[in-house]
């Protein structure tokens, strides 16, 4: 293995002053766009592409990688503090993170998110450096049947997100599935449920759905519920970070989150959102006190935050080794490679090892920078809870509308944003959980398409799902996840009531 010398060469190149400066610029910008709702890393990199044309490719990619990792850090902040996740990857974080913030433990939630992201990012980048080629060739064994199995496993996460009522939870899920039907059917080109409105042909944008449901919905709900009356005042317990007990609760979820997130970044399955939901489910299932989830359990922040960062590193595996983009940001980076006349593909490692290893080294460095940048900020951000609500929600709505409008520069998107916001408010008011709807919207179309692709390839033979070993194993996992609690409850003596 000549990975280590190559990597140290990469570090030598990345640790030069200009490269460090680009990395810093990238992570700072990334953190900023992560905080803004709707402005993701993909859009930012795309917008910066023309501006970076005159840069040397290595510098540009160091900055892009910084933006990419930085956005994953920044996303959790608004989720935790304001209950308004700006992108899909931080939806789960909002569930327990925001409860923690309401209890004055916002700094602890932000700290566990930051350290979890750092741990996950570092381990996953190491895995990327050491095992990228074999991982990528394993990922190629996943065809439509396997991806269908993966979506079925991902669907089981709904079981821990249903909330207090099964009917409401499943209603939410089916609402998401139904909204996922809207638009052109990928496989036949046929338009479904688009009612002749051409803007609906591309379906309901997940970003608009998430910002509408969470950011706009939360603003309306707060106004409806509390209005002008004073809310309970949040007392901040600590500006120092995590207690000893919180450290103890966090470290295992960080590692488990990494283990879930990294492979699911390599295998594209709905982007970084699925690993976060899976991690949340695993933490809740493994916890001795699952009832604390939803009421400020730090594990519910630590795991998913680690998972989304690890998946961000995983996405780079197929991109760098095979030239396969498996997320929106990766697709833009692929375009960036082309801008420099580089060929991302099986030969990139061989033809431009300097670039690849400098990039990998700067991912490590960027991670350290993000930790240094975000840890002291946790205490500062936590004070956002003390800003008057009228200003806070004003800013949220303006940024949400800006994010939605700038996606396609279409007023119809704004109409959709506000309509979904009103829907989100109504759902909150009636105790309908929001997360299952997001799962339905993201996984529904994927699962349906992969199923139909698999069946078309096998010429209508449904047995492919059980005869292909990986697909069969995934379906068994899904059944086990759903059945396990019941079986365990029967076999294990009930724990003490305490």
């Amino acid at each position, binding site marked *: 293995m000549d990975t280590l010398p190559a990597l140290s060469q990469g570090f030598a190149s990345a640790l030069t002053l200009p490269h460090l400066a680009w990395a810093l610029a990238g992570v700072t910008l990334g953190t900023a766009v992560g905080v803004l709702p709707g402005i993701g890393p993909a859009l930012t990199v795309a917008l910066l592409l023309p501006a970076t044309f005159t840069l040397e490719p290595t510098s540009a990619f160091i900055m892009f990688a910084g933006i990419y990792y930085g956005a994953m850090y920044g996303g959790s902040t608004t989720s935790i503090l304001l209950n308004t996740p700006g992108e899909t990857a931080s939806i789960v974080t909002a569930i327990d993170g925001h409860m923690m913030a309401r209890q004055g433990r916002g700094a602890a939630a932000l700290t566990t998110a930051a350290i979890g992201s750092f741990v996950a990012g570092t381990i996953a980048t190491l895995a990327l450096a050491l095992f990228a080629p074999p991982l990528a060739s394993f990922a*190629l064994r996943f065809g439509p049947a396997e991806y269908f199995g993966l979506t079925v496993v991902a669907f089981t996460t709904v079981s821990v997100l249903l909330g207090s009522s099964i009917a409401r939870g499943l209603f939410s899920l089916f609402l998401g599935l139904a909204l996922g039907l809207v638009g052109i059917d990928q496989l036949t080109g046929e338009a479904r449920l688009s009612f002749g409105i051409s803007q609906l042909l591309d379906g309901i944008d997940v970003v608009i759905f998430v910002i509408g449901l969470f950011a706009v919905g939360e603003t309306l709900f707060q106004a409806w519920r509390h209005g002008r009356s004073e809310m309970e005042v949040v007392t901040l317990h600590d500006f120092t970070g995590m207690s000893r007990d919180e450290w103890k609760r966090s470290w295992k979820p960080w590692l488990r989150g990494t283990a879930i997130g990294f492979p699911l970044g390599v295998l594209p399955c709905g982007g970084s959102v699925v690993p976060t939901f899976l991690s949340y489910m695993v933490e809740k299932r493994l916890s001795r006190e699952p009832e604390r989830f939803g009421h400020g359990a730090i594990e519910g922040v630590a795991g998913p935050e680690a998972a989304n960062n690890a998946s961000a590193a995983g996405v780079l595996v197929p991109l760098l080794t095979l030239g396969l983009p498996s997320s929106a940001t990766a697709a833009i980076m692929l375009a960036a490679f082309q801008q420099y006349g580089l060929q991302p593909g099986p030969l990139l490692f061989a033809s431009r090892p300097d670039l690849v290893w400098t990039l990998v080294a700067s991912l490590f460095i960027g991670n350290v920078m993000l930790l240094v940048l975000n840890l002291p900020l946790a205490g500062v951000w936590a004070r956002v809870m003390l800003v008057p609500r009228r200003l806070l929600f004003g800013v949220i709505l303006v940024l949400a509308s800006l994010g939605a409008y700038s996606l396609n520069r279409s007023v119809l998107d704004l109409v959709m944003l506000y309509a979904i916001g009103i829907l989100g408010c109504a759902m909150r*008011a009636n105790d309908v959980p929001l997360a299952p709807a997001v799962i339905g919207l993201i996984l529904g179309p994927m699962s349906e398409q992969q199923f139909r692709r698999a069946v078309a390839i096998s010429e209508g033979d449904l047995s492919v799902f059980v005869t292909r070993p990986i697909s069969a194993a995934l379906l068994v996992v899904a059944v086990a996840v759903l059945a396990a609690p019941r079986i365990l409850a029967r076999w294990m003596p009930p724990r003490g009531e305490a």
Partner: protein
Amino acid sequence: MRFAQISSVVLIVSAVAAPVAGQPAYQHLRIIAPAAPGGGWDQTARVMQQVLQSAGIVHTSSVENIPGAAGTIGLARFIGAERGNGDVVMVSGLIMLGAIVTHASPVTLGEVTPIARLTGEYEVIVVPAASPFRSLDDLVRAFRERPESISWGGGSAGGTDQMLAGLVADAVGVPPRRVNYIAFSGGGESMSAILGGQVSAGINGLAEFAPQIEAGTVRVLGISSAERLPGVSAPTLREQGVDVELENWRSLVAPPGITPVDRERLERAVETMVGSAEWRQALERYRWIDRYLAGEEFTRFARAEDQRVRAILTKLGLGPGETPPRTAGVYPVLVLAGLVFWLGAAVLETVRARARAVSPRIDAGPGWKPAALITAGMAIDLALIEQSGFVLASTALFWLTARAFDREHPGRDALFALAVSTGAYLLFVRVLNVTLPAGYIARWF
């Protein structure tokens, strides 16, 4: 708006009267890419932006992305909003012709002003290195024997890739409807299915597959060009007895109803652009083939392509008035039935809980008035954003939202709202280069 009109009149006059060498033909040229950032149309637009500026053909230029439905949403807005506008162009091409047919678009490319064809890319039929198909002959033989047993992986339904599959089927005597075409949503997705051997054969653009071909992970069975391409060792489809030629061309169009003067000025600018050294370099970098064609010839070419596309899509069962095979029928019904069922269950649960007086419903808060205030803010935002500009609309939205939470300090909040909106506007427009409606206030900076 008045200012913009006057300035464009001045520009036209100066461009027609005194085409001084070294004087930019346009003060500002807008290029619309009817796709999301990153794809072929977006890249074409951004390369044009660079070349036009650095070659001094335009003073400044901007790219606007209007993604959706393979370009037909961009086309509809281009026709609707830019009619008669002489300093805006849109990137277009073969894929848009196909999308207009498959999506039954109410607008067509016949309505816009054609300017020129710029570049082309050819399609390749590939198989993974380990595939039993050594040549196109092998593949065609198996395909003729049992068409459905060959799965063809490629890009979205109705796109260039599926067109080629249909043309090949037609040429070898298999009804195109029997092509087992597996549409994937992105280049990455279809490429990984091809590399992993999940489909029998893959169809994709040559440029996208070039790295894989060089690395030997896939084998090219045929290329859709008329002649062999320099630097590519693959045989053409035609020389192997499959009489098919297909090129994924990209072109430029101007809005409908522009003056002949405007049209000529655009055509001249594009001609200067394609002749520049910067453009040559860009072509090489992106592996695009120069297919510049302008004027009457381009118009004729586009018309012929339109007929060919319509014909093949109809044969594939994707044409106008076709009811696509109802493969997707069961799932939507299941989903909608589930939605209705669980909605009923949730309502029933609520009613029962009410009856037992242990309502899970959160007690109504101080009520609907503050929420209505915000809703009014949203309505005002929607009404104002395009006409009066982002800053004014957002200020109103912010101010009304602040009112919903607190009655105090209306004046101070208004100032704050204006400051936040202006700051956000400047951040997006100046730093991120996103175009937002300027309207009344932002026009001054």
